[in-house]
């Protein structure tokens, strides 16, 4: 119900001159009607103008197939979305847990202490390898980075099912985002390692830092390549994520992390070079070149006795191979991708 005062109050029209106080109610009503009509006409004109502008603009747009631009390149064209996806993963991963981000360290630290105690103390590697803790931890960081990238990347497409089956996005976005999330968690671990190494009197050297960069690059490229291949395959058969878990077991023991490379050299002799065909073994050796070597009393001696000859050459070749694998990963992904929405 309208109260009399409400009806008497002038309607709140924007920027309109007040009514002529002399005007009769009849005239007022007519003015009001005219103004309303004018307003409607103006709105209509606005709409028409917008429609014409739109029609003119759309004519120059080509008619194309609607599927999103795909491939890794398209992912980096949409950096803003990638950034938000990575941020979502990082902030959502441990939400609701009391220890939060600390869990990223608890996992690797527990592994570290198990190896340190079982292999170092019980099997006596502490006596054979100088600073065995650093030796294990520098390997563990990069192995953990690789397995996280590979594992989380493999599950990423299935995990983001709701988006993948409904919206056109470059689907490589999800494995790449997983890789970046893992990389984010590597940084504080590297910090801890650096502090520990400084404590042992480690001084960074140029070649060592180059080895670090190369090692991280290999783990990153290789992890992404594997994630691309297996994430698409995982859509067809979830068995592939189980295969990846199995592979991680082999990875941990096939790299010179819990045992020194010198032991491999001693056991296999000239066949030891085949051991270096495992890209992750080179990757771990590069990280050890960056950190562990510098903590030993005589680094030059350690390089000669505990690292393979031409480690940097091996590293560069493996980096090249990883890039090739990344291209293959992309090709496999593109091949499998077109059926993903219907198989998921």
């Amino acid at each position, binding site marked *: 119900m309208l109260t009399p005062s409400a009806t008497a109050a002038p309607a709140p029209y924007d920027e309109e001159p007040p009514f002529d106080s002399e005007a009769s109610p009849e005239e007022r009503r007519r003015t009001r009607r005219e103004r309303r009509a004018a307003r409607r006409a103006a709105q209509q004109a606005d709409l028409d103008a917008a429609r014409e502008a739109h029609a003119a603009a759309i004519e120059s747009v080509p008619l194309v197939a*609607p599927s999103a631009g795909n491939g890794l390149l398209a992912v980096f064209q949409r950096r803003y979305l990638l950034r938000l996806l990575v941020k979502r993963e990082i902030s959502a991963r441990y939400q609701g847990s009391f220890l939060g981000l600390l869990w990223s360290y608890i996992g690797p630290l527990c592994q570290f202490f198990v190896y340190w105690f079982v292999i170092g103390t019980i099997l006596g590697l502490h006596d054979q390898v100088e600073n065995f803790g650093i030796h294990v931890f520098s390997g563990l960081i990069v192995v953990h980075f690789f397995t996280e990238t590979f594992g989380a990347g493999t599950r990423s497409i299935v995990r983001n099912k709701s988006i993948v089956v*409904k919206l056109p996005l470059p689907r490589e976005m999800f494995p790449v985002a997983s890789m970046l999330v893992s990389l984010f968690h590597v940084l504080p671990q590297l910090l801890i390692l650096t502090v520990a190494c400084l404590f042992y009197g480690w001084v960074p050297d140029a070649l060592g830092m180059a080895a670090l960069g190369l090692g991280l690059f290999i783990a990153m490229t290789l992890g992404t390549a594997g994630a691309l291949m297996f994430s698409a395959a995982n859509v067809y058969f979830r068995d592939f994520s189980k295969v990846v878990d199995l592979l991680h077991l082999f990875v941990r023991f096939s790299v010179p992390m819990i045992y020194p490379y010198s032991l491999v050299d001693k056991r296999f002799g000239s066949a030891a070079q085949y051991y270096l065909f495992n890209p992750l073994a080179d990757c771990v050796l590069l990280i050890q070149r960056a950190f562990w070597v510098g903590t030993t009393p005589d680094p030059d001696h350690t390089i000669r006795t505990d690292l393979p000859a031409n480690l940097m050459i091996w590293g560069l070749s493996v980096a090249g191979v990883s890039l090739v694998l990344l291209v293959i990963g992309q090709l496999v992904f593109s091949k499998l991708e077109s059926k993903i929405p219907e198989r998921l």
Partner: protein
Amino acid sequence: MTTSIVLENVTKTFKLRYHRTIKQMSMAKVRGQETSTLFRAIDDVSFTVEQGEAIGLMGLNGSGKSTLLKMISGVMKPDDGSVLTRGRIAGLIATGAGFHPQLTGRENLYLNAAILGMSERETARKFDEIVEFADLGNRLDTQVGHYSSGQNARLGFAIAVHVDSDIFLADEALAVGDKPFKRKCLAKMREIRDSGRTIFYVSHAAGQVRKMCNRVIVLENGRLAFDGGVDEGIHFLHYDSDDEEEFADEETGDDI
């Protein structure tokens, strides 16, 4: 006139698998059962849509409407034939897809807008408008996991309708939400239509289609069964034969 969507002899076949594990597969092989059949979801469909048309896509459940929409949006590729579109596509296809239940409404708004293809600047420009449209009040800064399904839908819808687009797709979008919100949505859709964008609207509600669209396409078992005027299309489907219209909601055109 500019063409907006062109479909030529589009066909999409799905393989239906009855068995997935190795045990089931080998058992079926031994018994001589079929392990999979082919199912033609979309069968040789062709049509052209002009810029600014509002199409109502209708058909019974399982007639291929969503599959067709997915091919127009680019999620799926046709096995045969071609789909071509002009301009940017947006719509109410998966409102709220990718919402993370543990993030707040505000964080999800930014993320979802980016998933739908909005740039950082576009999101910043429209942020207030979206928030106002969703009308969630102080719930915006609480976890999406604690939202009711209606609130979830409001946020998703508010983001989706604010994406700049030339083609707007809507898949049975207005099934949720309370009446005032539904009214607001329909007004917004009408605004989209009147601004000259192409609308592709999937719905079973004859009243809504009548209010929103100027052309109806009917699919029947994946084949194009009807393409023409709105009233004829609805009549073709016999959606107007029963006294359904009597129950239709005056404002939203919803069936009650």
